[in-house]
């Protein structure tokens, strides 16, 4: 495995995103729409919104992640680039890392946007910025690596759009729980030890990164 390859692959994905602006022009507005819809659904009750804010944030992130993963898979599928990659000396763990890094950066950018929008709309105040930052980083690593892995499992099958959510969402549910708790603590909304949750989030991030690097090669092979 060479990190240089992983980095080239990540840069390639990011450059494609900067060109096509799917994330910027379609997924980001969708994100904002979700937040507004939450507002409608909860009767514009600021107190309720404030209490449920952390949970709503991570539900929104999961929905965005699904779209971003679909997009990352589609880039490789459109012109059989994934098969082309098999005919190079690049090791599959590098490909996995590269795709995960690109997905991580894109998701994190969207999370920052979403975060400030929710801060303003739901009138939240941050008590522990470091905890927010670290839990978001760890949770996003977990989502990006498990998403890349499940993305390639669902790749190459006709029913990718419907198969991916049913496979991925139950598996990343613990991330949503952990990150929600950590956020709730940092906003001072719940009486939980947010720092304890960082442990769980990092276990998840490590497990999925390792599993992904091991299994990715097996999966791209014939998928």
């Amino acid at each position, binding site marked *: 495995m060479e990190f240089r*390859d992983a980095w*080239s692959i990540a840069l*390639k994905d990011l*450059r*494609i995103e900067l*060109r*096509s602006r799917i994330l910027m022009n379609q997924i980001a507005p969708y994100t904002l729409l979700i937040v507004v819809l939450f507002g409608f659904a909860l009767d514009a009750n600021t107190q309720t919104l404030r209490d449920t804010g952390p949970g709503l944030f991570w539900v929104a992130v999961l929905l965005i992640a699904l779209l971003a993963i679909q997009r990352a898979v589609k*880039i490789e599928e*459109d*012109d*059989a*680039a994934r*098969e*082309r*990659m*098999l*005919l*190079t*000396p*690049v090791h599959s763990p590098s490909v996995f890392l590269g795709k995960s890094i690109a997905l991580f950066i894109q998701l994190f950018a969207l999370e920052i946007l979403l975060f400030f929008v929710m801060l303003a709309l739901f009138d939240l105040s941050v008590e522990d910025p470091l905890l927010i930052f670290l839990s978001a980083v760890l949770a996003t690593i977990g989502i990006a690596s498990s998403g890349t892995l499940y993305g390639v499992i669902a790749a190459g099958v006709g029913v990718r759009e419907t198969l991916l959510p049913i496979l991925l969402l139950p598996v990343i549910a613990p991330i949503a729980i952990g990150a929600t708790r950590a956020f709730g603590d940092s906003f001072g909304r719940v009486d939980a030890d947010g720092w304890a949750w960082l442990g769980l989030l990092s276990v998840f991030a490590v497990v999925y990164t390792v599993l992904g690097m091991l299994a990715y090669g097996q999966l791209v092979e*014939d998928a």
Partner: protein
Amino acid sequence: MNDVIDLREAVVTLGKFPALTGVTLKVTQGEIVTVCGPNGAGKSTLLNLCAGLLPVREGSAYVLGENLRENRRAIRQDIGLLGHKSGLYDDLTVEENVTFWGSMVRAGNDEIAEAIKFMGLDGRLRKVLVRQLSAGQRRRASFASLVVQRPSLWLLDEPHAALDTDGRDLVDGLIQEAAASGATVLLVSHAPKELSSPSGRFVTLAGGRVTSDINNEGSGDGVS
């Protein structure tokens, strides 16, 4: 005599469909072989098999000295496969695409620039998104990303498709040059007689097996 491809009664199934029903084919180093045959004869599958992308179900298959039944990965980095799909990214420019694939196969910057120039893609086209290219230009870009790889076995699926006369000459020259420098070329063509193919040997596939094998230069191997 150095056999680059040595298939014996190789069977490949795609799902339940037996795409290749027992192909026997020997290709020696430096040869240029044209594979022809009707639609659905299994020509593309044959190329994918030789690239180590498909499992061999029965028979034996050796490519570049490796047993494909045991290790399909070892040969892959020495294979240049041009399929129906080109493996390019629509939202990157020609140069970015070739540079990306060049870095994946450890090519130097000089080689990348040379490949772009060789395929007639320098100048204005260099900075154009692949999405905006015509089919022929796209084909050239795809070729350029193969050239940087310097493969020892070229597997080309209708390399002349969508190309103009200049492009065809370019590709033919490329094939000849590759063969002269010791590489082996297996190319698929629907209508070999219409074009001045650089190849001397014609293998016809039908029903997933070889039905004729004619060598114009030497003595014909006859039907295998």
